């Protein structure tokens, strides 16, 4: 394993030092990343967080039009309640705080504990669960939260920025999640700094279908044929869960180790698939946004847009990881 780190245990802290140095718009305190400009009076505060290793998610999405604070845990480990409590109290501008939580046992437990223990601020929570590779059932942990987290953070962030009250911001966030589905495919395993070797072994001619964003193995392996076939597998899974129609926001997301040129090759196939189903990609995002360290592979996230969500997506955003309109 070769990584650009100083020590396995120090990665998160070192990277946060780098973020703070690179982005004067951010403030890092006690492993929480805030807007340097402080809480906005009368605006609903948005707090998200989760294990590190998914950069730019979440800390790269702190800023105007998106999050007020992000709580990065250790690599692939959800943050602890103390971080979340501190973040929640700090960003409350008097209009309450929305917790945006990816659906994982660790994340939900720690955010729940934090919400229970937070004093002063009114807290609402939205659970993101978009990954169709996981069965959603009362008898499982439910679908994982993956790529749609970015959509929820962007859309809820825009709503909050416009002065929308907490219950409404929470409704928008839940709506963005409800309308989104994802599927991920790995060409290689990632290597966590702590383990120092790949989480799983994948032969040079196989790919892993239905992976999450924590280096966990997927549902099954198949031979690697090509970009078109993989795009089809992913889109079949998405379309099978929530049929494609109308106007779609589509993200082709890299897992961290996949170069942009390959993501564009995949996007071309995904867009053709959508068109063949009679639907339209009206908004898109291609790049490494919700990653798994150095994993090679991609995920597709599709969101069924309506006028409201389109407007919220288009609204100005100014964060290190996503920026337009200002």
């Amino acid at each position, binding site marked *: 394993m070769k990584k650009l780190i100083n020590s396995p245990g120090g990665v998160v802290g070192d990277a946060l030092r780098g973020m703070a140095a690179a982005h004067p718009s951010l403030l890092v305190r006690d492993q929480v990343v805030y807007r340097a400009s402080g809480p906005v009076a009368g605006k609903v505060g948005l707090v998200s967080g989760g294990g590190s290793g998914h950069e730019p998610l979440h800390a790269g999405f702190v800023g105007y039009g998106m999050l007020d604070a992000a709580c990065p845990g250790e690599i692939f480990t959800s943050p602890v309640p103390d971080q979340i409590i501190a973040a929640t109290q700090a960003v409350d501008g008097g209009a309450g705080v929305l917790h945006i939580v990816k659906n994982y*046992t660790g994340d939900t437990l720690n955010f729940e504990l934090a919400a229970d223990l937070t004093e002063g601020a009114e807290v609402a929570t939205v659970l993101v669960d978009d990954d169709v590779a996981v069965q959603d059932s009362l008898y499982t942990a439910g679908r994982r939260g993956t790529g749609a987290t970015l959509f929820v953070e962007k859309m809820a962030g825009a709503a909050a920025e416009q002065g929308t009250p907490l219950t409404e911001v929470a409704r928008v966030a839940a709506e963005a999640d409800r309308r989104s589905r994802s599927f991920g495919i790995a060409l290689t395993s990632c290597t966590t700094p702590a383990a120092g070797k790949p989480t799983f072994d994948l032969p040079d001619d196989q790919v892993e279908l239905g992976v999450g964003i924590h280096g966990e193995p997927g549902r099954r392996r198949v031979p690697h044929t090509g970009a078109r076939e993989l795009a089809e597998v992913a889109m079949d899974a998405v379309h099978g869960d929530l049929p494609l129609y109308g106007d779609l926001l589509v993200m082709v997301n890299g897992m961290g180790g996949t170069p942009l040129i390959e993501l564009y090759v995949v996007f071309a196939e995904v867009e053709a698939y959508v068109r063949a189903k009679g639907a339209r990609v009206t908004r898109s995002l291609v790049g490494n946004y919700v990653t798994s360290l150095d994993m090679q592979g991609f995920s597709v996230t599709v969101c069924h847009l309506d006028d409201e969500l389109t407007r919220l997506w288009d609204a100005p955003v100014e964060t290190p990881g996503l920026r337009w309109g200002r």
Partner: protein
Amino acid sequence: MDAAFCTAWLEEAAGAVAEGRERLTALDSAIGDGDHGANLDRGFSEVRQALAAGGAGQPLTVAGVTLIRKVGGASGPLYGSALRAMGKALAEEFTVADFAAAFQAGVDEVARLGKAEEGDKTMLDALGPAARALALAVGEGAGAREAFERAARAAREGAAATVPMVARKGRASYLGERSAGHEDPGAASSAMILDALAAVGARW
């Protein structure tokens, strides 16, 4: 028994987790995200420090709060809440029977928080049998040494029994059928922690 026993158990558990770290990482790499060893080792090191700092309160409560505050992930709040519940259930001096009841309270807390039941392939599959073995031993009049040993054995067997299970909770559940054939890392760490209990019981 008293606080000193709890401290000794926690110290022993910290050592066991540090020693078993690689194994837990390997188990969690197979069906999870590979951080269970690091999580628990980091957590129990913090527990050691917190105990060494000699703060007030039942050691189990201190340890529980520390795990909740410092570990993150699924296992942090689960183990943390279990230990905190145990600590709260124990008076300054307690019997093995008190300990068994407190242990059950801790296990119940895991089930409640994790919305899990035995058979879901989680730490509960080691903790549940351990709690029952402990209660049974106490009911049969066993001393601490024997009771803890029987609990540890039940935890080990429970952990081993997770191998063929298909996970329904935690990250391993995402693998569906592919989760079968691997021991649950949380069940394995539970067995380690119960082994630590037996070890301390044996020399108490």
